[in-house]
């Protein structure tokens, strides 16, 4: 599970983005930042693998026709599992589900963060107090035990349940960040102007506040996706995923269940874990880059002589 650290110090983007546009902000952020580029290239690589899985994988990932725990060779790049499946093919096809969980759960968590965080800041007063308390409670509750309990009770190991559990436990961090940024935007002139024009609150939030928080929202999406990758892997590792599904976490579950390390088949453990870490790193790098964009104080500086 990634360590997330809670700070209140989120400052406002220096420039109001309206002239450059949302797409412009994102594009500029990605190309100007080496960390973001590295993350984006990795992420793109996994996307391509997921889409072209049938072309890349040499065998059917479910086929049991090979020898058991065969060591890596030309025929089997990463060897075979304890039940004789080709590990490389499993890895390639597993990309699809792992990526799907990350993006779906990341999106769900981001939507809840935006709704809770921005409305808390915008409504203020008692509502802010209640929503903020609600956010903090979810932030502090240890999520893994909670996910485990909900997962065991549901006894339904489907993809949708997994995503829902991750969304429920993963939105709070982003909501807190968005709230502090929205709070600092609240009294800016362009919002005063919109209010003076007599715009409705919903219009102001959607067309004036949110566009100015684009880079933070993007950062939060990738942070939530990172959380989703790790949470899904953890849940599947301890057997709370669908054991018949094909994803990196499930591969690790079967590797551990078959004692792959002790049986002299370390690749079975190393490969899926490496993919999880690489996809997670891609998300983490993009997340960090957008944090830097939304908070100029954190940007790297040239060393003064």
């Amino acid at each position, binding site marked *: 599970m990634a360590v997330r650290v809670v700070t209140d110090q989120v400052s406002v983007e220096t420039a109001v983005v309206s002239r450059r546009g949302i797409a412009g902000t994102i594009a500029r952020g990605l190309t100007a930042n080496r960390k973001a580029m590295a993350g984006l290239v990795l992420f793109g690589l996994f996307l391509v693998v997921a889409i072209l899985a049938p072309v890349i994988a040499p065998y059917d990932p479910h086929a049991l026709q090979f020898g058991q725990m065969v060591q890596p060779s030309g025929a089997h790049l990463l060897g075979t599992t304890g039940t004789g499946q080709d590990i490389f093919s499993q890895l390639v096809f597993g990309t699809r589900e792992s990526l799907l969980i990350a993006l779906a759960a990341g999106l769900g968590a981001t939507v809840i963060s935006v709704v809770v965080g921005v409305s808390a800041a915008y409504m203020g007063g008692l509502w802010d107090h209640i929503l903020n308390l609600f956010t903090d409670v979810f932030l502090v509750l240890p*999520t893994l035990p909670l996910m485990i309990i909900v997962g065991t009770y549901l006894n339904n190991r489907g993809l949708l349940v997994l995503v829902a559990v991750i969304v429920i436990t993963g939105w709070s961090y982003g909501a807190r960040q968005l709230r502090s940024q929205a709070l600092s935007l609240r009294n800016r002139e362009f919002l005063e102007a919109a209010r003076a024009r007599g715009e409705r609150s919903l219009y102001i939030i959607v067309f004036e506040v949110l566009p100015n928080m684009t880079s933070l929202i993007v950062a939060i999406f990738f942070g939530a996706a990172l959380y989703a990758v790790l949470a899904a892997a953890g849940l599947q590792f301890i057997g709370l995923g669908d054991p018949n599904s094909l994803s990196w976490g499930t591969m690790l579950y079967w590797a551990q269940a078959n004692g792959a390390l002790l049986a002299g088949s370390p690749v079975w453990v190393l490969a899926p874990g490496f993919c*999880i870490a690489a996809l997670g790193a891609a998300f983490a790098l993009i997340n960090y880059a957008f944090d830097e964009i939304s908070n100029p104080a954190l940007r790297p500086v040239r060393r003064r002589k």
Partner: protein
Amino acid sequence: MSYLVRRLEFFVITLWAALTINFILPRIMPGNPAQAMIVRFHGRVSPEAVKAIEVAFGLHSHESIFQQYLEYLRNTLTGNFGTSVTFFPVPVGDVIKQGLPWTLGLVGMATIIAFVLGTLLGMLSAWRRGGFFDAVLPPVFIVISAFPYFWLGLLVLLAFALTLGWFPLGFAYDLTDSINLSWSFVGQVIWHGFLPALTIVVTSIGGWILTMRNTMITTLAEDYVKMARAKGLSPIRIMLMYAGRNAILPNLTGFAMSLGFVISGAILVEIVFNYPGLGFTLLQAVHSEDYALMQTLFLMLTSAVLVAVLAADLLTALLDPRTREQG
């Protein structure tokens, strides 16, 4: 004092939320898990245990849901957590008492080490903005923070225990030995705890480094730091006693809030190392669908995080007069 009142409110409400989640979950879940459990355990456990499950999950109860809730709260707050099905007929409280010290010891030690090291490294990296530490540490730890805790545990296990044979493959002490307070036993515990602790430190230290760096960047811009520089104080003194000292406190509160994430990771690490703490107990509870044990574990882990948060809050109120004045 309104700061403390607010934090106490948070403490009480979170605890209440955890208690209530535990009460509501089994009652709103589809397919009546309690009924299914009783059917499965029928004949394997005593009638009293079945009765205990029925009471805990509100089956065949003629009481209103509100009365059940009150009774549940009273039972939980008086330490009556029910009977574990996994370790029948041991009460859940006793099962947890066996695992708790191991988890507290492991996570506590690892967190203290990560705090001291991470704070120092974060300080250095902010002080030398653009220097070696600042260029290398943040990206490295961004990548490490994306590692699954348990996978890093497996890697460490493969490298240092299986291949090199420097450390044991798991457990908290030699199983041939019994728990005692001799030096050799303490040595064993450290030797067995080293790899799991290392895993937790490596994955959690990045958070400390990055927040400490970011908070310190803010304090370095303060006037009192300029003043200290103008007075010609030694750089080390300015770094530690002026900028660093003022950056630690917000960092501490922030990290206490995210301890829940560390605990979640530690659970998986314990599972990888067969470490006999609460995380390992949780896995056993999952395998035998021991709801009473699972829910109490959730409650215990939440309480542990909350106590840490409250301690950080008290410390902040004690050391930072501004929090007391502003409220």
